């Protein structure tokens, strides 16, 4: 392993004494300029935009006074004031120039430790450490910028605490790292990229671009040659005899018309998505060390994290249609540090970006101990779910037809086959909705085209609810929902609809009872 690379979290470290303490120290002097450079670089596109409208000078003026100066002052203050240390069981961070802040974070309570390196930081062997504890939406503490060496040291101390005294301190040796659970090669990364949801998004993005170009003709106003990109026949040298041949009109139609453009767009979208995916997950490596799962990945921004297996509140396996055909899936997990719903500021993170079905089973069974099977004998909800959902769909269809008839439209004939189709979809969804539980886990899967399976450790359930609407009561059905301590990545607890009431009630009692008998450790 070369220097400057994220390494395994626990390795014998000469700098941390036998007590595992870390002397009080300040941030790396690079704090004075690295964040400043990163912010400035990130703002260059905005700056260009501003200078287009308001001129170069005002852009520089605005940026200088309102971005560069505050960021510089902030980082100087932080460098001067922040001190951190590890004393016994606590990470102590003192900060603040004017009002002092003294935070003590018990190492055992740390949910998740992350080390991130941007390209500049990789070059200078610096890193940013993010620490999350239970119940906080934001990370509890961030140390930026410290040297990679220090970051590794801190992480290894935290992980050592997480592994527990029984594993390390008492026996005096470190827990061995087994062979990696998963390493992603080029094939995995490319397949993952092509099938990622990002592909859809980017396709839509490029589609919007084309729309602006072809329909609104905005691009050509600024860049005269912009439109030519979309008219490939002008650019492809085609021999003259071909042009005269009988099939040329067809070729012309195929190429010049939207067909090729669409293909191009899709291809470009896939290429972009693959590049993004590869950049993000390059060198993905997941390893396990006692209770702690650590992963590292990333080319542009290198990220490493250590998560205690016991802290997993929920685990979700996703299979989109495309990935399912290729036998691939992805895995997300939530710890109690992932409290908030996904929003603009809280991005969803994928734990395992892409993995084959068989390997995924092994990984899930590694993350969730004592799980009987990742694909158990699923139980179905009440078959009345089919009729119930289908009737809703039919009602909408009927409404559409009635409205359409009143216009005298011909859409009616197109809508009639939708009735059996809707029934078929409802039936398929019902068949692929299933739940399963034992003493340790509650499993719930749903979806037909895009499938997802949720694994919830019962010892981490927070409450178990049963809800009946008026219609539920008429049909003797109920919805069972459970609440867990993390939801950002997995969407939180399950809501199992259309269970027969008696079944739902007995599951509710079982889950609440099992949860009550165990102790929740966030």
């Amino acid at each position: 392993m070369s220097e400057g690379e994220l390494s395994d979290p626990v390795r014998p470290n000469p700098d941390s004494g036998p007590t595992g303490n870390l002397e009080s120290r300040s941030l790396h002097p690079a704090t004075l300029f690295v964040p400043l450079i990163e912010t400035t670089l990130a703002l260059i596109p905005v700056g260009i935009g501003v200078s287009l409208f308001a001129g170069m000078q005002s852009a520089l003026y605005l940026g200088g006074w309102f971005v560069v100066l505050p960021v510089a002052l902030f980082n100087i203050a932080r460098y001067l004031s922040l001190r951190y240390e590890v004393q016994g069981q606590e990470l102590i961070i003192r900060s603040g120039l004017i009002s002092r802040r003294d935070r003590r974070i018990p190492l055992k309570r740390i949910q998740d430790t992350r080390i991130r390196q941007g390209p500049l930081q990789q070059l200078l062997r610096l890193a940013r450490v993010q620490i999350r504890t239970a119940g906080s939406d934001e990370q509890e503490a961030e140390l930026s910028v410290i040297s990679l060496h220090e970051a590794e040291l801190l992480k290894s101390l935290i992980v050592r605490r997480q592994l527990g005294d029984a594993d390390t301190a008492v026996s005096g040796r470190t827990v061995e790292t087994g062979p990696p659970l998963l390493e992603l090669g080029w094939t995995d990364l490319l397949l993952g990229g092509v099938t990622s949801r990002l592909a859809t998004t980017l396709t839509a993005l490029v589609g919007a671009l084309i729309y602006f170009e072809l329909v609104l003709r905005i691009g050509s106003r600024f860049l005269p040659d912009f439109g030519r990109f979309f008219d490939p026949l002008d650019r492809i040298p085609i021999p003259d005899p071909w042009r005269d041949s009988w099939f040329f009109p067809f070729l012309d139609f195929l190429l010049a018309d939207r067909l090729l453009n669409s293909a191009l767009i899709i291809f470009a979208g896939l290429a972009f998505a693959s590049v993004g995916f590869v950049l993000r997950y390059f060198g993905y490596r997941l390893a396990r060390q006692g209770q702690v799962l650590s992963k590292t990945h990333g080319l542009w921004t290198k990220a490493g994290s250590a998560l205690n297996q016991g802290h997993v509140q929920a685990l979700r396996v996703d299979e989109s249609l495309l990935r399912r055909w290729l036998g691939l899936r992805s895995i997300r997990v939530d710890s109690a540090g992932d409290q908030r719903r996904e929003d603009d500021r809280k991005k969803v993170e994928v734990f395992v970006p892409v993995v084959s079905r068989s390997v995924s089973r092994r990984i899930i069974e590694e993350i969730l101990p004592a799980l009987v099977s990742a694909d158990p004998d699923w139980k179905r909800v009440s078959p009345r779910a089919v009729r119930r959902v289908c009737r809703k769909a039919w009602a909408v269809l009927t409404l559409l037809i009635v409205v359409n008839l009143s216009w005298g439209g011909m859409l009616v004939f197109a809508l009639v086959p939708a009735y059996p189709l809707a029934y078929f979809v409802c039936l398929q969804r019902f068949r692929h909705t299933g739940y399963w539980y034992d003493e340790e886990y509650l499993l719930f899967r749903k979806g037909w085209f895009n499938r997802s399976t949720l694994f919830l450790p019962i010892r981490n359930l927070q409450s178990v609810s049963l809800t009946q609407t008026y219609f539920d009561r008429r049909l003797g059905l109920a919805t069972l929902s459970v609440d867990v301590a993390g939801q950002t990545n997995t969407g939180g607890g399950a809501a199992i609809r259309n269970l027969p009431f008696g079944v739902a009630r007995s599951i509710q009692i079982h889950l609440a009872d099992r949860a009550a008998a165990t102790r929740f450790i966030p």
Partner: protein
Amino acid sequence: MEQEDRELGREPDPGSPLASGSEVDGRPEADPAEMTAVDTGFQSLDPRIIRLWQVGNLIFCVAVLAAAAVGTAFVWTQSTISRLAPIWMVPAALVLVFVLVFWLPPRRYATRLYRMGARVLELRKGIFWKTSVMIPLSRLQHVDLNQGPLERKWGLAVLEIHTAGTSNATHKLEGLDYETGKGLREKLIEAADLEEK
């Protein structure tokens, strides 16, 4: 275990979940269809909460009706429509007051129930949408006892139970007698071993 079952007021399971889960389309005959079918051992709230809700809803009605009256007066002065047009608001106001002040509170009272078991607290509510929440006592993070101005006057209290959950982390139990609430809070904290944590 069986003794605890009785203590929790549980009925024997209506058939194993496996058996009823795999049934083909047909009524789950043996199963009860509603929550009320298995209710035993639940406690009601303090009946004074009905009066509290009535007062609260009355204040709400007065506010809404006052706003409506101002709006109507404004329309009256501005438009040329018949002066009698807003008359429909009178029955609407009557219905609103009847539903919110006289019809809803007693029914709500009848459906709000709680049961403190040995290891699980269960809360029930809902007239149209019936909900039962089971909170394992070992999951309690902290328990608050709150009083609004009217509640302070009448000696009522609201128990607020917090778990580490996300979408459903806070559970409220309104309408407890203050002393009952205090006792329940003590019991909850004791059962949850909060001090030990």
